[in-house]
């Protein structure tokens, strides 16, 4: 089955992974800008990273018939550094015309601090100013509930935002309802250990229905499985769900959401 992985950090993965993804049916991915595992030293370092995301990575993906899209920002972890964050935010517009950029992301919170919230709000201003879609990272483990509620407060408090153009990622059992009932899109992230499994993602689909809901692998440089979406497809098949339902979650929904950005062309 053809599918789209809406959140996958391919800069951290090998070309072999692209080949495996292609064999498994992945036709497009979207790659939000994120933390490299260490704090970058300057705005120039981000400029190089954004060039990698907008120039090099789409070519590497295209070799395997995969269309590569991306989102730009300074991630929540490095947002603790306000000065650097503002320099990066000021530089982002240079790349907003690139033909694979879908919007601003993954912005969000990490430890739910004041600085993180400040930079999150400044990213919202940037997105509004340039009419960009937004992809949001919610914190993990014990910080998730608090951080997700804080993020929703900031989004709901901003009347300029079109909620149907905002995707809130890494939702779990205790946050999904808040995201969906407020009109945002929700992404479930499948992890091999410690966080959401394909089985629990299938449970959430059964409980909340497939509207405005998608799934991703968030594969990166840490323990993660870039082919997690096929695991979810298998779990849904095993439970007897229809092809239409599965296709809606793994293909039609990301397509519908991304189609609100000009560069998205996937038929």
């Amino acid at each position: 089955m053809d599918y789209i992985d809406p959140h996958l950090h391919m800069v951290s993965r090998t070309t072999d992974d692209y080949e495996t993804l292609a064999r498994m049916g992945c036709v497009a991915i979207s790659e939000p800008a994120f933390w490299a595992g260490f704090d970058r030293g300057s705005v120039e370092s981000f400029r190089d990273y954004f060039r990698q995301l907008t120039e090099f990575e789409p070519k590497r993906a295209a070799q395997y018939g995969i269309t590569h899209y991306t989102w730009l920002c300074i991630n929540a972890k490095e947002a603790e550094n306000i000065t650097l964050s503002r320099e990066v935010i000021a530089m982002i517009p240079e790349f907003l015309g690139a033909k694979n950029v879908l919007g601003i992301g993954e912005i969000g919170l990490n430890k739910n601090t004041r600085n993180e919230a400040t930079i999150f709000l400044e990213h919202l201003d940037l997105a509004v100013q340039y009419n960009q879609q937004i992809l949001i990272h919610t914190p993990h483990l014990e910080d998730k509930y608090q951080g997700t509620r804080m993020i929703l407060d900031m989004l709901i408090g901003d009347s300029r935002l079109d909620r149907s153009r905002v995707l809130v990622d890494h939702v779990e059992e205790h946050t999904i309802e808040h995201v969906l009932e407020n009109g945002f899109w929700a992404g479930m992230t499948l992890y091999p250990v410690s966080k959401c499994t394909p089985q629990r993602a299938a449970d959430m689909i059964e409980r909340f229905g497939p509207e405005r809901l998608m799934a991703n692998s968030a594969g990166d440089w840490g323990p993660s499985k870039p082919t997690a979406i096929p695991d979810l497809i298998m779990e849904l098949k095993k439970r007897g769900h229809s092809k239409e339902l599965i296709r809606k979650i793994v293909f039609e929904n990301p397509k519908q959401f991304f189609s609100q950005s000009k560069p998205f062309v996937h038929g």
Partner: protein
Amino acid sequence: MNTKQDILDPIVERTAHQVIADEFLIARAKILELAATLDRIERSSGDVEDSIPMNLLAQGMHILCDEEVDKAKRVQLLMSRQYDPQWQHTMSITRKGV
């Protein structure tokens, strides 16, 4: 949810008997892991009985055994930091008219 019904075929909704048949061995393995973890803690030196993580595990296990629904969500909330609806005020986050 209305839209849920349109696409979720009612015939695929498994009975409780089917679910337990499909998943008994998986759940059995998980409960065994938990039991062995508790044994491992027990035979190690030192006392963690009153520690925060042990308390959280104990409360989590209580949720598994009680009569209430929504167990996954309740375990999640148990393991979560509190949300303060006044956080923007507490952190002095001010916003221009948006």
